[in-house]
């Protein structure tokens, strides 16, 4: 039986982890800080990956670990729009954050997938008025 479908991660102590987060960063002060703040949440499983290992390694680890959230650094991401598109396109459940080392901003990316019930769904999406509950 494949328990990975549950989307939960179990540690050795059988503590259920409610979130799997991958941080793709460098060995610097900001990366340390981000990891520190995330790992302070004991119910999250935070995995740090070095950006020096390249985009392909990250994509492979996302496949392996099935994270809920991937955090990348904006400087790395500027040249890696391909990465954002690839991950979001193939994993609609994923949320991606970019953290800027320069600016006090976090950018949030996620894919919105809409099951079309009526033509008006298309129209309302274009108009920015789509509400899934309608």
């Amino acid at each position: 039986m494949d328990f990975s479908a549950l989307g939960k991660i179990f540690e050795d102590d059988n503590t259920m982890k409610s979130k799997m987060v991958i941080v793709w960063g460098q060995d610097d002060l900001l990366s340390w800080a981000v990891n520190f703040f995330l790992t302070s949440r004991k119910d999250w499983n935070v995995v740090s990956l070095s950006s020096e290992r390249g985009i392909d390694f990250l994509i492979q680890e996302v496949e392996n670990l099935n994270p809920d959230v991937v955090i990348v650094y904006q400087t790395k991401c500027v040249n890696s729009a391909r990465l954002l598109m690839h991950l979001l396109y193939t994993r609609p459940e994923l949320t991606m954050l970019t953290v800027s080392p320069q600016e006090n901003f976090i950018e949030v990316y996620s894919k919105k997938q809409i099951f079309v019930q009526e033509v008006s769904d298309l129209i309302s999406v274009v108009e920015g008025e789509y509400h899934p509950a309608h």
Partner: protein
Amino acid sequence: MKILIVDDHVLFREGLAAIIRPQSDIEIAGMAGTVREAIELARTVKPDIILMDFNLPDGSGVDATRIILDEQPDCKVVFLTMSEQDEDLFAAIRSGAKGYMLKNMHPPELVAALRSVQQGESALSRAMTLRLMDELSRTKKAIGRPAENTLTLRELDVLRAIATGMSNQEIGNHLFISENTVKFHVHSLLAKLNLSDRKEAANFAREHGLVK
């Protein structure tokens, strides 16, 4: 030692605090996100060391440093920044900072640097040290032998002509000036460049790309 952290990047600022807090010999006296807050907090808490970002929402860390050091000359300011621009490094040092470190450093290096600064040493990232050394080297060369940009345009014309092997009379004819005027320019440019004769002047012109 008492530290004041000045940075508008909340994650970074709180991260620095998290790195420093476990150190028993270092106390975080305050945190600021703007030039104004930095100046006000520095007056209140009188820190030993300020970790200063370069770019702040209401101005530059250099501006804050000048004001703070004017009021508290014993305070030590260390820039911690993303900027690797030479002009930022030199502006920070001219403002009186004791250090200039890049944010890509590792946490243990930061703590070690703070302790060094407290003991009276300076703190420079390796890359910035190299830039500073390069600049000092260039400045030393310029002092020993003034660069060609200290010459007047006419002296540069004469120098280029010397490098082509022209005599003073030929230079005069070429530039439509008297031979005595040429002699005056030659004497002047040799003195400015700290050169002893025409041969050295010709070599100087070739070395500095003034002639093809």
